[in-house]
């Protein structure tokens, strides 16, 4: 190897070491800049993908009409989630009235987001969404979608990479771990994806269960709320099978959410967020309605 090559190699190694030692705040600034630069292309690719999917399924309608329909659907889903939450608050309020004990429960504030990009990294199950710092989204904010009359967990915000962009780590990723339990039971475990989960909708693993846990096939798995990161009672999936080990048991769980068909998702904003975005500002008395049961109590 020539002397010039050795010099270049030494400089290269030095630069690599220097870059890997960047502080997280510096990395965040770099990524914010990159997101600003790539944003038009990410949105364009999202539009192309949507166009291709729609072209294959139904006749194209005018673009403006399509945008309006999407907006209405997002609003409808958001309202559905809020109604679900309202019902839960009412039920809780009634139960607590009966027990003459009341524990205030903050209503969920959610922001509707559009999925811009799916699985951009090879080894991580992630999404890029179009809401970020200025929309009140924070790291570890839970991400949900409506599933029938309930809310199902999609994952959590892994990184906020700009004013209007964030990365969501999906529930199917091994690193998204949720404290979970069976419905109407206190049997708890940790639910997560599996490493190298490469199928379209990979199964989840509910680990650290008691060997005596009643985990019959088809039983619903919900978030327990332990730890405070994820709200309780979010639908996660259904049990497929149970494997009993030497000291504990684990269940294979089929996820509720179809992760390959996600177009719009909802980010749960922190309860103490003082940056409720305009989309969530009290409109038509929605927030008031959510808070009313608390006042009644």
């Amino acid at each position, binding site marked *: 190897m020539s002397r010039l090559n050795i010099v270049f190699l030494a400089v290269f190694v030095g630069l690599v070491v220097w870059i890997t030692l960047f502080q997280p705040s510096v990395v965040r600034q*770099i*990524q914010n800049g990159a997101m600003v630069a790539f944003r038009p292309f990410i949105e*364009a*690719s999202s539009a192309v993908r949507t166009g291709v999917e729609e072209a294959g399924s139904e006749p194209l309608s005018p673009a403006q009409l399509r945008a309006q329909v999407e907006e209405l659907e997002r609003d409808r889903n958001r309202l559905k989630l809020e109604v679900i939450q309202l019902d839960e608050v009412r039920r809780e309020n009634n139960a607590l009235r009966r027990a003459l004990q009341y524990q205030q429960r903050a209503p969920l504030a959610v922001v509707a987001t559009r999925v811009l990009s799916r699985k951009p990294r*090879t080894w991580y199950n992630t999404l890029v969404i179009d809401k970020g710092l200025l929309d009140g989204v924070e790291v570890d904010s839970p991400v949900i979608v409506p599933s029938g009359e309930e809310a199902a967990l999609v994952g959590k915000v892994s990184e906020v990479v700009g004013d209007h962009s964030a990365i969501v*780590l999906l529930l199917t990723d091994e*690193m998204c771990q*949720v404290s979970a339990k069976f419905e109407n039971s206190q049997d708890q475990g940790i639910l997560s994806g599996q490493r*190298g989960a490469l199928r379209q909708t990979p199964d989840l693993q509910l680990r650290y269960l008691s060997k005596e846990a009643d985990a019959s096939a088809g039983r619903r798995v919900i978030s327990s709320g332990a730890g405070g990161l994820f709200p309780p009672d979010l639908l996660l999936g259904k049990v497929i099978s149970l494997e009993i080990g030497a000291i504990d048991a684990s269940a294979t769980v089929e996820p509720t959410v179809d992760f390959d068909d996600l177009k719009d998702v909802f980010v749960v904003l922190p309860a103490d967020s003082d940056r409720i975005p305009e989309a969530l500002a009290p409109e038509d008395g929605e927030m008031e309605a959510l808070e009313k049961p608390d006042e009644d109590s």
Partner: protein
Amino acid sequence: MRFFVALLLLIPVSFILQEFIPVFDWAYGSRLLLVHTAFFAIAIATPFPVMLLFALFTGFVWDARYHIPIHTSEEVYGGLVSQELPFGFTIFLLGLTGALIQGVRPFFRRGRWELPVFMIGLCTFLALILEYLVINFHRGGLETPGDLWWKLLMTSLFSALVSPFLLLLLSRLADQTRYRIQTEGLKRRHTYDGDAI
């Protein structure tokens, strides 16, 4: 010099095109890594110091766009842990694989693209498997489900299939900019220096 400037423009173009390349769910969630493929093609066509500069540039932009600082769930572990793949890791990967692929430059110079195409697929495979091994190292245990190998193979195959077009593009660029890729008596084919073949 004009050749290198053209290559420098090729990388941002590949990044833009990468945004439009979907995940192929039918192929075990693999996708065409166009940026990596473009870099490997450039690594074959350029000298070692230039390859390192391109590794630095490409890896930096790749991590700026795609780096995900994975934190362990606070709910489970009660705090944050260090990142699995640090920012800048892609630069290291590209530098390493780029150095490997430099070994087939003589073949490319002779206008023989079979081995360079194979090496581009192999280096894609190596870059991905190294990432996966580092992730396993951080998380503990080594899990190698059967689908993993298919995903690696399919991703590598996509890179190898696209690479001849990129190599052709580079040879045409070399012709246009009168850059002399080959240096020793191989005038009968692909001189890339503007001479008639």
